[in-house]
């Protein structure tokens, strides 16, 4: 289950989509719009998310397959918002479902780490004067991803 959408989502509803009696453990990662500072140290008003949707869907499918296979998951759901988002709004949700917790937790971390550096989304801060400021990729995110190279085929 992969969704790219400009609408918000309800956690209980999304959980029900992956819920089953064969699962005992679910790991969720939820990213939201944090009250951040712009490069000129002013509070942002929100964010804008740009996406190359056709490519992002292909990339998310690949990441999801890797997670399902490597950690023997029963399910994996990924939702990513696009467009204009206010402070506090949900950006991304990953849910992994497994019989036991260790696999669900590791797989969920892998999916969000991968998504951060391998999927065609771009974030902009929305500033007071309606201007957009590009958010830069974090080198830490790239380094974090290297950890997975030995684990994932």
């Amino acid at each position, binding site marked *: 289950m992969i969704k790219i959408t400009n609408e918000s989502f309800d956690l209980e509803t999304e959980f029900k989509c992956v819920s089953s009696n064969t699962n005992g453990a679910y790991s969720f990662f939820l990213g939201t719009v944090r009250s951040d500072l712009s490069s000129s140290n002013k509070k942002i008003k929100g964010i804008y998310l740009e996406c190359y949707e056709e490519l992002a869907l292909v990339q998310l499918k690949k990441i999801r397959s890797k997670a399902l296979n490597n950690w023997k998951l029963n399910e994996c759901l990924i939702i990513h918002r696009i467009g204009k988002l206010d402070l506090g709004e949900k950006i991304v949700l990953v849910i992994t479902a497994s019989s036991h917790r260790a696999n669900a937790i590791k797989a969920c971390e892998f999916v969000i780490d991968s998504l951060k550096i391998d999927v*065609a989304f771009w974030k902009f801060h929305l500033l007071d004067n309606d201007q957009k400021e590009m958010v830069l990729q974090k080198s830490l995110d790239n380094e974090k991803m290297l950890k997975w190279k030995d684990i994932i085929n």
Partner: protein
Amino acid sequence: MNITLKYFSWIRVKLKKSHDLIELKQNISFKELKNYLISKDPVFKEIFEDKSVKYFLNLSEIDDENQLINNGDILAFLPPVTGG
């Protein structure tokens, strides 16, 4: 032949457009296309010199400069992604 160029993030902002439809007389390689684009607009020089930009042809990343581009192909310009 016709090919579509798609621009994202700062490249879209810099070029002030999200895509281009370009017409060429014959199939060319990605390398030849780069030179062609720079000859038309020097701002492409800056883009192609930025090693962090990735190029996707029909949703697959280009890993060989000599890859041929065909009629109807879609070439996307991707700065480092920042989703999640």
